Every structure is written in structure tokens, then in C-alpha cells.
């Protein structure tokens, strides 16, 4: 238990640093911005109480906001994402008790379900974030391209990070 908590604290710090130092400065073709830090929310155990998921999501969003001067945009989007995480997972994988480990991963959910889960989460998050961000400067086409390209980029980077970490764990075993 203590080990998992520690692992999540380290993951949280690493993800925040990676987002603010590296990924915030990437902007492919002026549209695609990877929002990779949602990996932390994605990886929280399914058995965790929703209140805790909401708290962690809110704090994560707020941390990113403080670093990137976005004043509550990420905090709001993360909180909504934290609430919608479980229904999304249930949509693709109705029987939670059949998971081998409570953490969503390739192994516990199967490749296709996990890919669908990650893609839906990144699409929802990018849609939420860019919608909140452009509330004042509305431009539907630009917003749509931003959401589509950013969620695709986020999805690809999250899958890449995931395959890196799992491979390392398998080698250790």
C-alpha cells in the first residue's frame, strides 16, 4: 500500500515536471499541444473512492495551472475528467472485479480496451481544456483542429510512456 502511494507521488511530480518543462513548449504546427500529465489520473486504481480521485485530479490541475499561468483552466477540466473516468471505463469494461490488478494497464484490461480507454480520456480532456481556454476568443474550426490534433498527440505520447514503463518492469521480472 505504502509502496503504491509512494509510486503515485513520484509519478505525480515527474509528470508535472515533464509537462511544464518539456510538453508545454511543444506546439506542433501551431495546433497540437500534448497534455500528457493526465496520465496520473488515468492510472489511479479503479478501487479508489471517487472523492479521492476528484481531490487528486483537482490538485494536479491546479499545480499545472500555477506553473503555466492558466488560472483554473486545467483544475476545472481535471475535476470533470476525474468524475467521468469511471463511467468511461465501465463503458468498455463492465466487470471491474475481473481485473487482475486495480490499476488500469495493458495487462489488466487487455490491449484494445486499454487503447480505447486512453483515447477517450485524452479526447475528453483536450475537448474540455480547449473549450474552456477559447471561451472568449471563439473560432469553431480552429477549436476543432486543436482538439483533434492535441488529443491524438496526447494519446500517442501516453501510449509511448506506458509501453516504456511496462517493458522495464517485465525485464525486472
Amino acid at each position, binding site marked *: 500500500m505504502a509502496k503504491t502511494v509512494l509510486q503515485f507521488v513520484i509519478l505525480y511530480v515527474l509528470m508535472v*515536471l515533464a509537462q*511544464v*518543462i518539456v510538453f*508545454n*513548449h511543444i*506546439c506542433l504546427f*501551431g495546433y497540437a*499541444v500534448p497534455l500528457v500529465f493526465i496520465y496520473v489520473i488515468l492510472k489511479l486504481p479503479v478501487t479508489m473512492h*471517487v*472523492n479521492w480521485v*476528484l*481531490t487528486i*485530479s*483537482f490538485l494536479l*490541475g*491546479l499545480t499545472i*495551472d*500555477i*506553473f*503555466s*499561468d*492558466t*488560472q*483554473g*483552466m486545467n*483544475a*476545472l477540466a481535471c*475535476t*470533470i475528467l476525474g*468524475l467521468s473516468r469511471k463511467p468511461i471505463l465501465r463503458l468498455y469494461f463492465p466487470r471491474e472485479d475481473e481485473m487482475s490488478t486495480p490499476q488500469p494497464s495493458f495487462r489488466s484490461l487487455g490491449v484494445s480496451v486499454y487503447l480505447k480507454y486512453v483515447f477517450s480520456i485524452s479526447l475528453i480532456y483536450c475537448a474540455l481544456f480547449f473549450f*474552456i*481556454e*477559447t471561451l*472568449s*476568443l471563439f473560432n469553431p474550426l480552429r477549436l476543432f483542429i486543436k482538439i483533434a490534433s492535441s488529443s491524438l498527440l496526447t494519446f500517442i505520447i501516453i501510449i509511448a510512456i506506458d509501453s516504456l514503463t511496462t517493458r522495464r518492469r517485465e525485464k525486472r521480472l
Partner: protein
Amino acid sequence: MRNLIDFLVKHSTWFVFAFYVIVSCIFLFDKNPYQHHVYMTSAGKLTAGVYDLSHNITSYFNLRETNEELQVQNARLEEELLGMKATLQLYQERYYADTMTVSETLRPYRFIIASVINNSIHKPYNYITINKGSRDGIRPEMGVVDQNGIVGVVNIVGDNYSRLISLLNPNFRLSCKVKGNDAFGSLVWDGKDPGVALLEELPRHTIYTTGDTVVTSGYSAMFPEGIPVGIVAGSEKTIDDNFFTLRVNLLTDFSRLSTVRVIASDIADSIRQVETDTNESKQQNKQ
């Protein structure tokens, strides 16, 4: 009472959710950028510390470009200096006594050199963090320039770091004019291209051609008159027929900002002092 507690526990998720949503909305819709606290921005000690560390590594990447730009500017300044010296000599010869007092009034501005440690260009509202703060003499509402042109204005000041409102932020309007013309308008970024801003509210009788330089008007206390801002690229369709809107290619390359100069001016303080004094006396007159 028991029922109430049961109800609260049963629906606690919704209460927690609503609470967090309300808190984030408070942050989100607090529109005034001057009211943010220093700990909630990138000028805070911890956040700026992280950016400072990463800047220490990444600042080496664009040294070459900065160096080239500095040399170009240096050459231009040297040319200008030689020209100035020649003119000054001419004047000195003519009116020796008068020129002695002129040279004193030429120096009301002083520069504080700072490094950019965090910067964004692709958000709708962009901010910049620099590694100088109140201990180095930086105060809110000071103007910031780099070797090419205007960068932004100081917004929140911490002890050792401060946050600037970038020129690429629709909250920041800069009073500008087309060089060689006294009509002025206000320059604002439209949130699209980080290399282009709009010069709005320019009177209709203003004469301009594409390629003209846009400079600061000096009507705000932050920037002295005549700092180059951009080049006129063309005109834009306007809603109001009485004014022009021009598209301006910015001279500052915001994707490669590294060293900037904060303008600490003695005039700005005195101008502001006069303005507040007159405002106060107006209010007193009303009463």
C-alpha cells in the same frame, strides 16, 4: 438529523465535485490580471525555481542567434552613435553653453537586464517569467524590451522573480503610431499568429504604406517614445468605419526570447504621481 447525515454521505461525491468546480471557476473568471497573488503564478518561489533550473540548461541552445542579433544591433547603434557624435559636435560648436544642459535630460531611463526563464506563445493569454524581482528594483507596470522590440509589461513581482504580461496577450494594449505620423492607435494581439498583432483605432486620415515601421507613441508611462514594435503588413477589415485597423508583423521573435531589458524610468513615477494627483483632486471637486 440522521437522515441528513446519511444524505450527505451518500451524495458526498457530488458535493466534492461541486466544491472543486466552484473553486476552479473562481480562479478562471477572476479577470483582473493584477489581482492574482504571487504564489498562484509562475513568479512564485518554487515554480520560478523549477523554471530557473531548466533555463540554466536550455539557455545555451539559442546563444548563437542572440549573439548574431546583438552584433547586428551593435553595428546599427555604433553607426547611430557616430552620426549623433557628428551632430552633437556641430551643435556644440554652435551653441556650446546650451548643449551642456540637454545631455542631462537625455537620461531619464535606466535598464535592468533579466533572463527569460519561462515563456509561452501558443496560448490565448500568454505570460513570461523573468529572473529579476523586487530586490533588483523591478516594480509592477514597468515596460520590457529586448534587442529587437517590445516584449511586454511587468505584472506580478516576487522577491527574485516576476511575471510579465506578454505582448501576445489580449489583456495588454499598447499605444503605438506609424513612424513619421502623429496619429496613434492601440496595438493588441488577436490570439492567432505569434508573429502578427493588430494596430486598432487608427484615425482614418492616417497615411501609411506597407513596410512602414510602427513605434511606441510614448503616451503610456511604461515605454519611451519611438521604440520599434513592428512593420505594417497590410490593412484589416474593420467594423467601425471611422478607424483603420492595420496588421503589424512584430519585430520581437517571441519563440526565441532569452535576454530582456526592463525599463526603469524616473519619469514614469512622476507622470503617475501627477495623474493620481489630478484624479484625486477631480474626485474632491465632485464631492
